[in-house]
């Protein structure tokens, strides 16, 4: 069941332009004047402390929130309502407990739903569990099913809202490798929101740091893939980003440690 026989050739990822994007909830301004260009097929990671507005940005890209000001352009067309190009993977897997694994993956598919669903499950290595209830799966497996569900329609834009933050360390590494491999194979544009700087540097072509609703850092990561989290270049980039997020606190902490 190769995908070549079941689907047409895969289109490239979405080109994403974010222009003067602001979002307020009541009097609280969560995002102010965000400008960001994402080229097709790029992997962008958005990091920041909790409450910095990074998840709101992702929800704006998904069309789950409407901007207070500014706009989101998909391939040059302004986004109105739900973003049907995009698929979202949430922090919690949000599987339907009353559907078996395969029926969860094939959610909303009309023709060849089972066939496509099985293909997607093969991609995440869970084809053998297609007839199980989702409650019988582990947390990592549930997120893999959610990933299969997101990829089954071969979206051009994948929005990842901290999908690995609830996983244990080993499962998280597996999941990161899986997402990287599928992204390389399928050429979609990916936007990952995370609070884990190492994860961002491991996966992304570019790391965006958001603080108080504005972009603080826009750091290109040009390390060759697959990346080695233990390498000196990796550690250097990671520290650089971390220092910008934590500001003076990290530096003074270090100096204090050195002094003692």
């Amino acid at each position, binding site marked *: 069941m190769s995908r070549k026989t079941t689907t047409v050739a895969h289109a490239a990822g979405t080109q994403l332009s974010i222009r003067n994007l602001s979002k307020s909830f009541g009097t609280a301004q969560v995002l102010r004047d965000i400008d960001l260009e994402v080229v097709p097929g790029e992997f962008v990671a958005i990091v920041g402390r909790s409450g910095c507005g990074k998840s709101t940005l992702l929800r704006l890209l*998904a069309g*789950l929130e409407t901007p207070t000001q500014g706009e989101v352009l998909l391939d040059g067309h302004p986004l109105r309502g*739900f973003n*049907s190009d*995009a*698929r*979202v993977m*949430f922090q*919690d897997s*949000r599987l*339907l*407990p*009353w*559907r078996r694994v395969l029926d969860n993956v094939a*959610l*909303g598919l009309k023709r060849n739903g089972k066939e496509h669903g099985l293909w997607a499950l093969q991609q995440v290595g869970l084809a053998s569990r297609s007839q199980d*209830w*989702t*409650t019988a799966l582990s947390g990592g497996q549930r997120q893999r099913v959610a990933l299969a*569900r997101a990829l089954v329609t071969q979206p051009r834009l994948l929005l990842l809202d901290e999908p690995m933050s609830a996983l244990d360390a080993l499962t998280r590494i597996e999941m990161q490798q899986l997402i990287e491999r599928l992204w390389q194979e399928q050429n979609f544009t990916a936007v990952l929101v995370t609070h884990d700087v190492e994860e961002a540097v491991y996966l992304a072509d570019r790391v965006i740091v958001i603080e108080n609703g504005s972009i603080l850092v826009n750091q290109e990561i040009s390390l060759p893939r697959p990346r080695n989290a233990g390498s000196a270049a990796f550690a250097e980039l990671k520290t650089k980003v971390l220092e910008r997020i934590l500001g003076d606190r990290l530096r003074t902490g270090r100096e204090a440690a050195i002094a003692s």
Partner: protein
Amino acid sequence: MQLTHQKSWSSWTRWLSWEQIAPWLVPFGLIVVWQILAQAGIITTRILPAPTQIVEAAIRLLQSGELVRNVGISLWRAMIGFIIGGGIGLALGVLNGINVTAERLLDSSLQMIRNIPHLAMIPLVILWFGIGDQARIFLVVLGVFFPIYINTFHGIRSIDPNLIEMGRVYGLSRRKLFWQIILPGALPNVLVGLRYALGLMWLTLIVAETIAANSGIGYMAMNAREFMQTDVVVLSILLYALLGKLADVAVRILERWWLPWHPSQHG
């Protein structure tokens, strides 16, 4: 020899394990004690007839066709009332669950009516419908309606909003959202309501049939009371218990059928 013996013993215990026998020991023991006390004359027949007398009464009424006819008419009333009341309750529960405007208009009125014990309506119901089947069915409708309505409404409202958001992100239409996420998500609560409703259905019918009826299990009991036939009275009470138990079993079967995914089914 040893082997075959063990095998037959194990198949015997598989048929009747201790877990299966245990719940029946107490009721069976009580019946034996009751029979002994009744036969010894310690309990007079007027207070409580012996179990064997009740069985005799059941056989007598079965042969005359009275039992089948009365149980049949009671079942029919229960069913009609249940279908009407349950149907309206389900429909209104769904409507108010998914539509905020409908909830604002209807829910507080329904909550007010809910607080009236439906059996308190009997005098009014008799004035409206007379003493025919309509009155009895109307009372069953009232009794069944509220548990189904409240649990359906609550079931829909307590669905994880994240799942609905996910469905919308994944391109489900409103209709699909309802059939694939909202209704299956509310179903465990609907079945809880169903179980309550079935209990109330029999309760209502017992009361309704003891007031001015000329058929049904309740009538059979009231009629027997006038002729001091304690055995038939007790038989009628046992019939209600049996029918209530059957209704409960039916709901359990529905749960196994409709909620195979639910944690309660994997215990």
